[in-house]
């Protein structure tokens, strides 16, 4: 059984955002609102220093599919809604989720409210108990009054919600989430099971994202980790795990970090 992971080459990444867009279209995630990002693929953008000694870094982030996943430990239902698959992926089962958000609390890369906590991102997002999912496509007010269609009209004409919905099926999760449940990156398991790569990997124009089997020493991901000094994220503030530090044993690695100015 493979153990999937990802390596992101920061010297190839230009921060174009294709991965984030590809993820949003593939997984039909809704717009950021009320402290929930719904961005399963996101970025930490950092501008530091004072002109002219400034530094700007972009680090693409996603669920780390940790080997020692605290979100799984925290999930209170039986069988766990947040659970590990044998292939190393941390998968969320929609049917069993009751929306208690203990996973959001437990995950070092997540927060209940990114705005309030001034966090760069949150791996796990929560669909509110009351608010509509994809409110834009249920809103009947015209985007430009007297001129354009409303979100509701677009989705009605397209015959789906959201209109661009990618229809996929999976035994654990659904293509559009329901109210009162959390959601997160599922490493596009519905694609991987069919021999495809996650959509963010496919979309990256620079091939900065490499997806593969970490348990196979000959795989590209294993080779890259061996060749370069790979680092892992420690939290959602952009701090890295120090050498020797295990953290939650994240399976997303970053290689070849660089900086224009020292």
């Amino acid at each position, binding site marked *: 059984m493979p153990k999937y992971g990802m390596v992101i080459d920061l010297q190839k990444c230009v921060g174009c955002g294709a991965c984030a867009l590809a993820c949003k279209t593939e997984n039909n995630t809704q717009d950021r609102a009320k402290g929930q990002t719904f961005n399963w693929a996101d970025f930490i953008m950092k501008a530091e220093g004072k002109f002219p000694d400034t530094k700007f870094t972009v680090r693409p982030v996603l669920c780390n599919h940790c080997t020692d996943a605290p979100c799984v430990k925290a999930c*209170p*239902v*039986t*069988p766990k*809604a947040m659970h590990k698959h044998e292939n190393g992926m941390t998968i969320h089962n*929609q*049917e*069993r*989720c*009751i*929306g*208690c*958000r*203990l996973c959001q609390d437990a995950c070092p890369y997540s927060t*209940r409210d990114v705005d309030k906590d001034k966090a760069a991102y949150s791996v796990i997002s929560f669909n509110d*108990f*009351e608010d509509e999912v994809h409110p834009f496509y249920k809103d009947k007010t015209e985007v430009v009054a007297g001129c354009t269609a409303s979100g509701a009209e677009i989705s009605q004409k397209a015959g789906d919600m959201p209109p661009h919905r990618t229809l996929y099926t999976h035994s654990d999760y659904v293509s559009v989430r*329901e109210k*009162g*449940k959390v959601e997160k990156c599922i490493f596009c398991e519905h694609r991987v099971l069919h021999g495809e790569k996650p959509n963010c990997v496919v979309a990256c124009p620079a091939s900065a994202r490499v997806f593969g089997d970490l348990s196979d020493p000959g795989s590209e991901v294993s080779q890259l980790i061996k060749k370069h000094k790979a680092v892992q994220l420690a939290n959602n503030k952009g701090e890295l795990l120090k050498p020797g530090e295990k953290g939650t044993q994240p399976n997303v690695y970053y290689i070849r970090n660089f900086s224009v100015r020292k």
Partner: protein
Amino acid sequence: MLKDKVIDRLSGSADLISTDRSRCMRMRFNRNGCRQCLEQCSAGAIDIYEDVNINADKCTECMLCVSACPSGCFTINGLDFYSLTGRLRKVQASVQSPVLGCLSDPKKTAHEKTVCLGFLSEEHIIALYVFLQGPLQIDISGCTDCRNSSIAGILESRIAAVGGKISLPVSEKIRLIRNKAEIDFHAVSYDRRGFFSALKNATFLKASLLFDDDNEPVHAYSAKKLPFKRELLNRAIKFLPEETQVALFKNYYYNVRITGDCNKCFACVGMCPSGALKIEDNNTGRELFFNSSLCNGCGLCENFCMTGAVGIKKGFPGKNPFEFIRLKEEVRHLPTASSVEP
């Protein structure tokens, strides 16, 4: 799907009790310690470690788990309690006091027979008291020779408990018959017309049980479903006089309160299996609302609350448990320095 189900039910291979783990408090919250079904099951047939399972080889079919579970995890297949009471009412039109017996008793002196009567919870007894016009005889004379002999005593204490709580002559109307000789059975005599309509009704009943989808056994954990016991009580209570209603509010309904420690995470809304808690937006922001008639008193909200702000207590002090009321944050009465003994 439907075909399989119908065949299952026709051939009788479907389990007698279906379980829905999404209702089980322990499955919903791993730190919950509910043991109600385990404690009732003297055969040790129930396993609630990783899933809710009934070991059919060990199960004596006493149905005590069904009546004990506070959140409605167990359902008896093929038993529609509403149509059972409906048929008993019909019998009452020609016979003064119908007899309810159990299927394992070979005697023919019963108008209706069901699986073991251990499924009759206090709520069921109240419903029988309310929905039947005249007295009902429950034949427990066969219990002594049955492997589930404890049911006779349990039913007796349940009926006594109901009578005590609502101070109505329940035990006079729902009579337990321990001695075979005391059964007052009169067969319903059918004329030609009555015979055929009885035949028709029986056929429709069987057909409705075959295609019955109401008791779809498995739900998503997020689905809200009121346990049958509570639904029954909510229906029955409306036919009772006001002072009895107040006694029922006190003994069978629950009240939830929150303190100022509530951080409005609303996880309790998701935890609640029956939808008694909900969020409503009003001008001061989001508030928690509670509906006592939808609360089965399982206490998962209190059990789960991370700030210890939610408290649940038996007894509904208000007048109308059927409406959602806003939960006001109450000041927790911490012991003051003077009240604490040194």
